[in-house]
């Protein structure tokens, strides 16, 4: 079987039929594994893994994000290759500072470069952990360098995405959201 050019085990249905093996080779695209790629549990386990291993924190999935009106911090990591899109982490400023404090052992009272760097790394690890759940994505989808955006009242809009996962999580009394947007698959 060919998975985007990566040869794995031959297709079972063709075995023993006397046909040339090449006739049985079937290309499986990312689109055909859409159900696996868009499985929401993959995102939950990626968030759990990153927060537990890097921050020693347990996260819970929530249904809604409380509106605070605070400045927010967003990390965007792009996907390229067999899947294009982005992993977007977003939290309010106080949550971002708590995450950075937990990662570095330092205290923060504003969104400085170290906080932005920490949130960019969280976005990077979430994107890497999420794509690592699907072998074809792990091997054939690259990640961009994280971009971090700070401010108020902004929205990220993608015209007609293939699929989108948008989850809200909480640790202690801090909230954040993680979005996977896929705008193209090969």
């Amino acid at each position, binding site marked *: 079987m060919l998975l985007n050019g990566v040869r794995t085990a031959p297709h079972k249905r063709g075995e023993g039929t006397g046909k040339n093996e090449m006739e049985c080779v079937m290309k499986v695209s990312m689109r055909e594994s859409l159900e696996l790629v868009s499985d929401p549990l993959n995102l939950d386990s990626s968030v759990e893994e990153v927060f537990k291993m890097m921050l020693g924190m347990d996260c819970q999935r929530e249904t809604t994000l409380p509106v605070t009106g605070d400045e927010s911090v967003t990390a965007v990591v792009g996907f390229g290759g067999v899947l294009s899109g982005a992993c977007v982490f977003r939290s309010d400023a106080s949550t971002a500072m708590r995450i950075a404090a937990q*990662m570095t052992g330092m205290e923060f009272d504003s969104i400085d470069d170290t906080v932005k760097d920490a949130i960019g790394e969280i976005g990077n690890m979430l994107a890497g952990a999420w794509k690592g759940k699907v072998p074809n994505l792990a091997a054939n989808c690259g990640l961009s*360098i994280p971009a971090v955006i700070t401010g108020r009242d902004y929205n990220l809009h993608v015209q007609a995405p293939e699929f989108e996962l948008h989850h809200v999580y909480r640790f202690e009394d801090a909230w954040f959201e993680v979005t996977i947007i896929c705008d193209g698959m090969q």
Partner: protein
Amino acid sequence: MREIRILIVDDSTVMRKIVERSLRQAGLDTLVVHEAGSGTEGIEVLRVHTVDLILSDINMPSMDGLEFLRQIRAQDLAPGVPVVMITTESSEEHVKQAILSGAQGYIRKPFTAEQVKERVLSLLTAA
């Protein structure tokens, strides 16, 4: 106990801090840590300092970790010094590419201090 000199190459200052903290948690208190924010900076550090181990990210602007690894091997900048790649990329293909470029170890992000300890101590003991 002799000092252990380590070069950490990562474009994220936060990740460099986390890696250093993990090494200290591994019991390596006699550490001398050199830091570099890119492969290019890493090469500059190696032109001046001798190290016992290199820990490098892969996905970096300017010069990525694999190119950095190829360059130091080609220029014989750190002969016999083990290199461990620390990265979010986890596929077998990426590991293979890192090993072919001259890495001796691979740590996937996110990681625990225990995983860093295990990889680093085994390489330092073998060296």
